[in-house]
């Protein structure tokens, strides 16, 4: 019944390609995530962006177990597995024994290597990169900005080609520290607008008590600064022992 299967594929493919990040407050704000979406998580160092990414990855694996490729450029594979295990309440052994559909690479430093990796693993549905500024590109560009823009545009192509959800963490400019108001803004993503342009959703993490020591606000502020498909705004998460909770 090829015609029936064809019709079913069309309907079910469209239906299955919507996901939540696993946080009620954030999901209510940003809505369902579809495949071919790039989400950027930006924060100054020490705000917990890697930890937040790890929590989102575990949520997605727990809820959907989509084949996930995690490119860790800032932590060793052992450290990352240990962190993910503590969030998921699984042992390191269980994680390594592939309880999850998770593939971790800590030695893919180049966009061309990443392209090859995805070509060889076409089943990958979620790609996480921590953090994007550590991914290198071609040496043929005359400026770092051009090379960075090329990396990002190639990521955009990959998202479309493989119908990926791409989660990127990003460093923010030091200019944040020079302002009176330390809450991150889109312009803090860097000197070029390339990351802003390719991102469908941009979230920033901010801790008021990081800057204002006497602050009693211990919550993590999640600022949704761009959302191509829905609302923007601010919501909050609790952070305790490596875990973010609503």
């Amino acid at each position, binding site marked *: *019944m*090829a*015609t*029936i*299967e*064809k*019709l*079913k594929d*069309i*309907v*079910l493919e*469209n*239906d*299955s390609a919507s996901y939540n990040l696993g946080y009620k407050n954030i999901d209510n704000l940003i809505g369902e995530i579809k495949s071919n979406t790039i989400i950027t998580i930006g924060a100054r160092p020490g705000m917990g962006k890697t930890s937040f990414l790890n929590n989102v990855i575990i949520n997605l694996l727990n809820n959907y177990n989509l084949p996930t490729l995690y490119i860790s450029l800032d932590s060793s594979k052992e450290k990352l597995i240990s962190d993910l295990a503590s969030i998921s309440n699984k042992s390191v052994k269980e994680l390594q024994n592939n309880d999850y559909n998770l593939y971790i690479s800590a030695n893919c430093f180049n966009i061309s290597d990443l392209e090859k990796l995805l070509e060889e693993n076409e089943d990958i549905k979620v790609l996480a990169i921590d953090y994007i500024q550590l991914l290198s590109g071609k040496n043929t560009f005359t400026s770092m900005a051009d090379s960075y823009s090329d990396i990002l545009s190639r990521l955009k192509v990959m998202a479309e080609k493989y119908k990926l959800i791409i989660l990127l963490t990003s460093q923010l400019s030091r200019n944040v520290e020079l302002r009176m108001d330390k809450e991150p803004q889109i312009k803090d993503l860097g000197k070029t607008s390339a990351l802003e342009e390719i991102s469908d959703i941009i979230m920033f993490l901010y801790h008021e008590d990081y800057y204002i020591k006497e602050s009693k606000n211990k919550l993590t502020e999640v600022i949704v600064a761009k959302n191509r498909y829905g609302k923007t705004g601010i919501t909050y998460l609790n952070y305790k022992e490596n875990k973010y909770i609503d």
Partner: protein
Amino acid sequence: MIKKKDNNIDTNYISNIGDIYGNVKDVTLKAKLITIRVFEFTDTIMCILNFYDNTGKISSFLINDKDADFKNLIKSLTVDNTYLVKGNITDIDEDYISDFKKETNANLEDYLISGKVFLIKAIKESGGE
């Protein structure tokens, strides 16, 4: 899988049938069910549901694996009731209709009331509000 009746359907984007032009994604319609035709295959159930509102008529496909939940969903559908249906609108081409006839001996044209087809992703009763 097809979302069941209790799933939330975003009601912010309700369109009138008469306003639909071209192939569009993620449309929500509020319309009255006027006919149901069920086709059962080995592993799959396909329904052709025809809807109308005061601006026009449209045919829709509701299709899923043949499981108990889906059978219950179909059983619960009632002609003359009003539903919120969410999905994508697409044109159905003549090749598809002829291939379908070859495989199933059923002539889709006998059941479709429009050339445009609504591919249902979620459905829930609206209570005629």
